[in-house]
């Protein structure tokens, strides 16, 4: 079965809709159709990245939330986008069972996320334990003067 090269395809609604609106609607849908309550709190990040980069951030968030839905057995998750002068920070927390990084095989999802972070020359930290998992991703920005 062929897999699409995800980063080449831009969904049509992505061009037209404000980034945060799209994500807000996505997390509302996830919350109302599943067992996990998603909280989404975000600063504006439009203007700090190209459209292509913003799409990659979107995909990182989708991948991370899919992982939570599939593996975490969490009841709540919080997704934040915090905007600082030189970088934006993505923080994804869940109150699930956590995972053991040393024994857990990295699926396609985590590898995709890591390669996208590398593309940004960003960094990430995974904190997984008894109270759940916290993933913190830092992506340096290049400001675009609008």
């Amino acid at each position, binding site marked *: 079965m062929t897999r699409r090269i995800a980063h080449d395809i831009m969904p049509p609604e992505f061009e037209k809709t*404000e980034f945060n609106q799209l994500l807000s*609607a996505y997390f509302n849908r996830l919350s109302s159709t599943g067992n996990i309550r998603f909280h989404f709190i975000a600063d504006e990040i439009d203007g700090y990245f190209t459209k292509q980069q913003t799409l990659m951030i979107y995909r990182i968030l989708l991948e991370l939330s899919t992982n939570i839905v599939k593996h975490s057995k969490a009841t709540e998750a919080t997704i934040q986008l915090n905007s600082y002068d030189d970088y934006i920070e993505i923080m994804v927390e869940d109150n699930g069972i956590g995972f053991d990084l040393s024994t857990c095989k990295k699926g396609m999802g985590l590898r995709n996320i890591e390669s996208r972070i590398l593309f940004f020359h960003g960094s990430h930290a995974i*904190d997984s334990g008894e109270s759940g998992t916290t993933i913190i991703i830092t992506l340096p920005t290049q400001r675009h003067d609008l």
Partner: protein
Amino acid sequence: MTYKTSILLADDHLLFISGLSTLLAEEQNNYDIFVAHDGNMVLQMVSDQQPDIILLDIGMPGIGGMEVLKYMNRVYPAIKIIMLSSYNDAHLIEKARRAGASGYLLKNCSIEELQRAIADVMEGKLSFPPIVHLPEHNAYTNPIAQQFNLTKREIEIIQLIKEELTNKQIADKLFLSLFTVETHRKNIMHKLKLNSAVSLMKFILDFKL
């Protein structure tokens, strides 16, 4: 001669706007219809045509719907604005309400609902959808949390800072890494617009967190 309500339709989906304009322009409706495809056109037509109402798409590219709304609210406060959107998103609806919209309609509404909204708004009433579910961060009943967009975890950490625990102690107590706690602390300061531990303590005491 009966008064015709003058309506400016603003949306970049041409097929949608052409269909809507045809529907609304039917004689029995008593509307005068104008059409704009983007924010710039809206601003231009507002000064030329002086509409009574604007049906304004939130998702227009370029100068977005929200920016136009804010501008209109400031410069032409008498013109009523009903936002149009594909999203029944409580967050967006609240944002539109606070920015001065008189109404908010989903694009999948019926023509009767649209006519009712137009009539209500022309009478000076508001026309917003009933709240389907609370915006995510209203689940935190603490109004400070809502106002500053603090998460549950951040409030929890603020409580522990108030009890004068060190970052390491907080990390151990909450089963988090030190880096995670330090990051939460940094974000808390950022959201509260504070820049010292002292000012954080003062904030906590002032707001009785």
